[in-house]
């Protein structure tokens, strides 16, 4: 699953809205540990994400990077330490979990669109039933985001009728319809045909330009260079190294990072 490519989008990125807040914390992970029964999968994770930050998490498969972002919206449970999202600490309290999930969008490797619903229904379901937005308004918002991901003409089709790239763009639009404050991307381009990677990255860059707080687990190093303001390298369930992309790629410090980069960059 881990094809590595250097897809870059050939245009100047508009950085005017891409400011990172100095004071507002979006996500705070403090001394966090997680086990899968006896396996210590995440070890002593400390990560503070400021509002407006664009973070790329890289690392070999099995390093715990997906597990980490899945902990941030509690698709996975952590056993020790704290995770605080938008000021709400994640505990077993279902109310808090729902509160956090309403504000955190997630995009999956395998899209996970609802195959029995049309594209429009996929987009409006959560706004209507979670946020209580009237149907007409939800549909208007949905069409707005479909236009933004450039597939408004697909609104009444079913997911099975769309290409992989289109499905992933719908999945992004579906998250955006909930107007989240934070977006999590779990290898959004890894399951796509090479020809479709670019169209999805375009949408993600557009989001970054709007100032969205994003954490992306991805092997798209071109994207990391162009968009991220911080790259995190993980291995064996821990954060090994993090830095600004320029320094991360040109001057890695840890031996493990050097080895990883030497294997994926040619």
């Amino acid at each position, binding site marked *: 699953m881990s094809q590595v490519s250097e897809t870059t989008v050939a245009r100047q990125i508009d950085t005017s809205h891409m400011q990172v807040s100095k004071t507002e914390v979006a996500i705070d992970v403090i001394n966090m540990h997680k086990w899968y029964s006896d396996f210590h999968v995440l070890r002593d994770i400390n990560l503070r994400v400021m509002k407006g930050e664009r973070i790329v998490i890289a690392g070999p498969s099995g390093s715990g990077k997906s597990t980490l972002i899945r902990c941030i*919206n509690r*698709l996975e449970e952590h056993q020790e330490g704290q995770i605080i999202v938008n000021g709400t600490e994640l505990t077993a309290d*279902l109310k808090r979990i*729902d509160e956090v*999930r*309403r504000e*955190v*969008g*997630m995009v*999956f490797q*395998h899209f*996970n*669109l*609802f*195959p*029995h619903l049309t594209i429009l229904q996929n987009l409006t*379901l*959560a706004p209507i*039933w*979670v946020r209580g937005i009237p149907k007409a308004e939800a549909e208007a918002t949905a069409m707005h985001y479909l236009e933004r991901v450039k597939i408004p003409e697909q609104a009444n089709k*079913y997911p*099975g*009728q769309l290409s992989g790239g289109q499905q992933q763009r719908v*999945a992004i639009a*579906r*998250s955006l319809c*909930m107007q989240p404050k934070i977006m999590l991307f779990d290898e959004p381009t890894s399951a796509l045909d090479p020809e479709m990677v670019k169209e999805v990255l375009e949408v993600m860059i557009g989001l970054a330009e709007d100032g969205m707080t994003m954490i992306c687990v991805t092997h798209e190093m071109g994207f990391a260079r162009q968009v991220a303001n911080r790259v995190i390298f993980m291995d064996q369930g821990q954060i090994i190294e993090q830095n600004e992309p320029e320094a991360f790629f040109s001057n890695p410090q840890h031996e493990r990072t050097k080895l990883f980069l030497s294997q994926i960059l040619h």
Partner: protein
Amino acid sequence: MTDIGFVRSNLVEPRPAPVRTSGAIAWAQKNLFSTPLDTVLTILGLLFLAWILPPLYGFFFGNAVEPNGTVEQCRLDNAGACWAYIAAEMEFFIYGFYDIPEQWRPNIVFALGAALLIPLLIPKAPFKRTNAVLFLLVYPIVTYFLLAGGVFGLKPIPTEKWGGLLVTLILSVVGITLSFPLGIILALGRQSKMPIIKTVCVGFIELVRAVPLITILFMASIMLPLFMPQGTTVDKFLRALVGVTLFTSAYMAEVVRGGLQAIPRGQYEAASALGLGYWKRMWFIILPQALKHVIPGIVNNFISLFKDTSLVYIVGMKDLLEAVKTKNDTALEWQSANTATTGYLFAAMVFWVFCFGMSRYSIYMERRLNTGYKR
């Protein structure tokens, strides 16, 4: 050595598929006589049909006694099916011992049921929600008071007198409409993370599934009253209804569980990540997909239930089959060689019509709901 190089100079446009050879002769050659073995099998098959069809035709139509015929005709040596007997006893087969002057009441129930159910089954018919509320909430109440009487000056008719197709249909319709949601709840409970709910559901399913329906009916009708306080009685019909419903719901739960297991984890996760709570997740995302996967199994259960209703004879109720059997045994004035056979054939045909109807409708529904792979 440069032979392997190739560059296409003009793209091939799509063109229509070649016309298929058709016609009766081509079809027969392909399907009936393509090899010597096929030819032999075809001839054997035709001989078998020639042997079996004429007598069957003779029994059902040729030599059969028409509905307006007499018993004397049925007693002739070469007489076929005695449809006259069916026609004469039809009322008993439909209503059992229900008072004859009051039979307009079940008739209204039948008509009302059809009027409410048919638009519910047609996807394009309007007012689905109102229709469903009427059918699921209002109709059962109306049906109960209309059939049982005792209100609005209607003569009370105890359930012991209900019988025939009326009983079969009430048991099946109530059993189906109650066991379906109950089965879904049990299936969800079985997957629950809460230990008490899970244990109760697993216990119920495993207990009920491991016991024959006859035992449950028998328990409900004979054992249950022993445990009840003195003086309280629960209607026998109601007890059978509860027995059939609980029995089917346990099976339904396992079918639904199969469907739930077929749903990829990503669907649960995507729904959770959007902030949908447990019940909304199940209602909007998981169940619509899971149930669609297991329509054949669900309908299988409906059909089983429909046929199993005939087991209520064990607690002394006269469903359609038992009504037929009763008449076969007691209607001395209709005694003839083929009377009993005709009676059972009639019962079989009625069962078949309903079950086949359910089967066809489920196939239609499967096709209609097959959006996941729509191209």
